């Protein structure tokens, strides 16, 4: 068993008749895949994970492992291991007993248990704290013990509920690398829940972005980053976040279309407007562009360059973050670390068309305005 199929899964708060925690989620997680559920807090990602684990009741739809339906199977019988957000270690047991707990229940011979615990302790580097008690350990150490306890049973699949959210930056980096390495070594299906998009991008084979109980998009990190399905996914991924401008599409007599921002001519569409997008003309539209894609210069180089007034500039070691105001909106622009600006002069900004995304202002749905606008190159 390793393929997990969610078919129209739904869960409601308050014993099944409150608002939706998860709304008809259909998704199949392939064998040995590292699937990450990503979304802000309260988007339903944790409820989904707990439904897979059997810790939460499924109100509608069904969940199956390989081809066996498991809706009513208790957690014990699902052969899955889980690492919890606050580690969930057994406070009364020493680290060694915490790890061997699942094996003891399965009545493995003690010799095999000791050998297995030894291997796992080395894999997550906790051989030195096997006899300590959980309350004596740091966050990072407790997290490693929780991981060891999950790995030791060689389950069919692993579930992670925001395991790194309470660690400091350095430990999070180390644990992320460790988990990624474990996935490639163990070759088992892993389902990981997080609100940190950096973790999702770093760990996932595929990411399922969720928002307000609904699945927004499923795709590889590269697809999610460069081909967002809607404004939410585009705005949520990427740090610092994508800039959004309120624009309109205007059409000239000769059929060439161009993008207007607050009365200025921002950029021309290469080629003709997609026939399917005609209703977009004159409708309010949102244009999105990532901070590291906006080109800037001290002087005006092109007719479509616009003057933006510098608000603040922060040099952060590896990169600089420039905040500049264009009409009524503040833009975030990434610059090389030791960039300098004239104190009072404006900075001229240019929005390369191939890095622009367009979304409907009301629904946030993405529009592919012109034929080439499928997967802009990186």
């Amino acid at each position, binding site marked *: 068993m390793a393929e997990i199929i969610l078919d129209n899964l739904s869960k409601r708060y308050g014993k099944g008749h409150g608002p939706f925690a998860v709304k008809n989620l259909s998704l199949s997680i392939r064998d040995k895949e590292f699937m990450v559920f990503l979304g802000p807090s309260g988007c339903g990602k944790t409820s989904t994970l707990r439904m897979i684990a059997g810790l939460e009741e499924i109100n509608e739809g069904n969940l199956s492992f390989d081809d066996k339906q498991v809706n009513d199977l208790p957690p014990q019988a699902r052969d899955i291991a889980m690492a919890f957000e606050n580690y969930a270690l057994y406070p009364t047991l020493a680290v060694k007993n915490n790890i061997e707990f699942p094996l003891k229940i399965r009545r493995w011979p003690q010799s095999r248990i000791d050998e297995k615990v030894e291997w796992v302790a080395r894999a997550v580097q906790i051989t030195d704290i096997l006899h300590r008690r959980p309350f004596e350990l740091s966050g990072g150490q407790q997290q490693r013990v929780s991981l060891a306890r999950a790995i030791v049973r060689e389950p069919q699949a692993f579930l992670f509920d925001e395991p790194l959210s309470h660690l400091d930056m350095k430990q999070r980096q180390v644990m992320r690398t460790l988990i990624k390495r474990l996935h490639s070594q163990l070759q088992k299906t892993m389902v990981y829940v997080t609100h940190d998009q950096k973790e999702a991008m770093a760990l996932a084979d595929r990411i399922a972005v969720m928002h307000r109980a609904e699945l927004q998009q499923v795709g590889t990190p590269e697809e999610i980053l460069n081909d967002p399905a809607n404004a939410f996914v585009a705005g949520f991924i990427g740090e610092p976040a994508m800039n959004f401008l309120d624009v309109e599409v205007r059409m000239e007599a000769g059929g060439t279309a161009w993008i207007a921002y607050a009365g200025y001519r921002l950029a021309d569409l290469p080629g003709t407007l997609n026939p399917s997008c005609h209703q977009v003309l004159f409708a309010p539209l949102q244009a999105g562009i990532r901070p590291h894609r906006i080109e800037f210069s001290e002087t005006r180089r092109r007719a479509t360059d616009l003057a933006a007034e510098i608000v603040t500039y922060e040099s952060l070691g590896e990169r600089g973050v420039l905040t500049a105001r264009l009409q009524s909106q503040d833009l*975030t622009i990434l610059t090389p670390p030791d960039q300098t600006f004239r104190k009072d002069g404006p900075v001229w900004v240019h929005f390369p068309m191939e890095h622009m995304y367009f979304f409907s202002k009301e629904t946030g749905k993405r529009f592919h305005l012109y034929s080439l606008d499928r997967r802009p190159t990186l």
Partner: protein
Amino acid sequence: MANIVFQNVRKCYGDYEAIHDLSLEIRDREFFVILGESGAGKTTTLKMIAGVEPVTSGAILLNSRPIQNLTPEERDCAMVFETYALYPHLSVYENIAFPLRAPRRRIPDDQINQTVLQVARVLGIDPFLDRRPAALSGGQRQRVALGRALVRQPAVFLMDEPLSHLDARLRNEMRTEIKAMRESFGTTIVYVTHDYSEALALGDRIAILHRGRIEQVGTASQIFRRPMNRMVAESLGDPPMNFLKGTIALAQNQSVFATGNWRIPLPENPRLRESVGKEVCLGLRPQHIRLERNHPDTPFSLPSKLFVQELLGDHAIASVAVGDRLFMALCQADQAYSLDEPLYLAWAPEHMYLFLEDTGETLLAEGN
């Protein structure tokens, strides 16, 4: 007008010495940042200025007047606490007005009202002046805490990790706002944080505090370019600087960095000459490392194997195993390497750092 001078300040909790012999000068109207890990003693230092933590020994001068024996209310400091420390039983309006109502200040009510409303407008919290702190979001509570400090226009403004409990987007916003509002404060600001990017973004000068000792004080670029020791170098940059142990040896009368059977030439400088034979460690920042598939024709390189690669949007981090150590290198997002693929690290000689292994002292820093 407010400059603050620490003279050999020591702070002990029982026999645990939290602050050892701290001497420091914070200039007037300076945005001074204290950066340090949790437990380094930065909040204690701040609270000693405010007076809520007594000084065990040594003196703190405010405009060359000793204040270490004054009670908090007698010092002209305002403080924003990490947990905001708002008064749960008072409305937002009362929370901000509270300092002005202190009996010792004898400020008439109408003046209090006018000041509070003005500050509330500046911070954009005037719509919910009658709400209780419990009914506010993290960002709003943070603004109320700022308002309560702003309203007094104190000589010194103390901020204890005010942004650490906000989510990433709000933190960036508030950081820009604090930076933009800095002129209107018109006071000396002492800001404490564990997040190095906040320190670099906000501080005129930064002090690196580690286990109760000041490791280095300097501007952002001084700290970043010329760290005094390994500890300072390691505390700046995400992902942090990579380190590799080795020794300085002599090859054809030229000092080289030797580790395993690799020899890397070092620039000629007397400091390196004297420490030949000493245990040292090489420091390289991830963004200065290039990954090459085939052997680069430069002596400044090391062989390695790919451990794991993480895509992070506009860039990717490749962790490569160099001997038993893990090195991290920034690379293009679309460059995919396979597991355990042999790669070569290459870097420009001026980006090399060298630290003594025992004291961590810097022997070689960028550009010299």
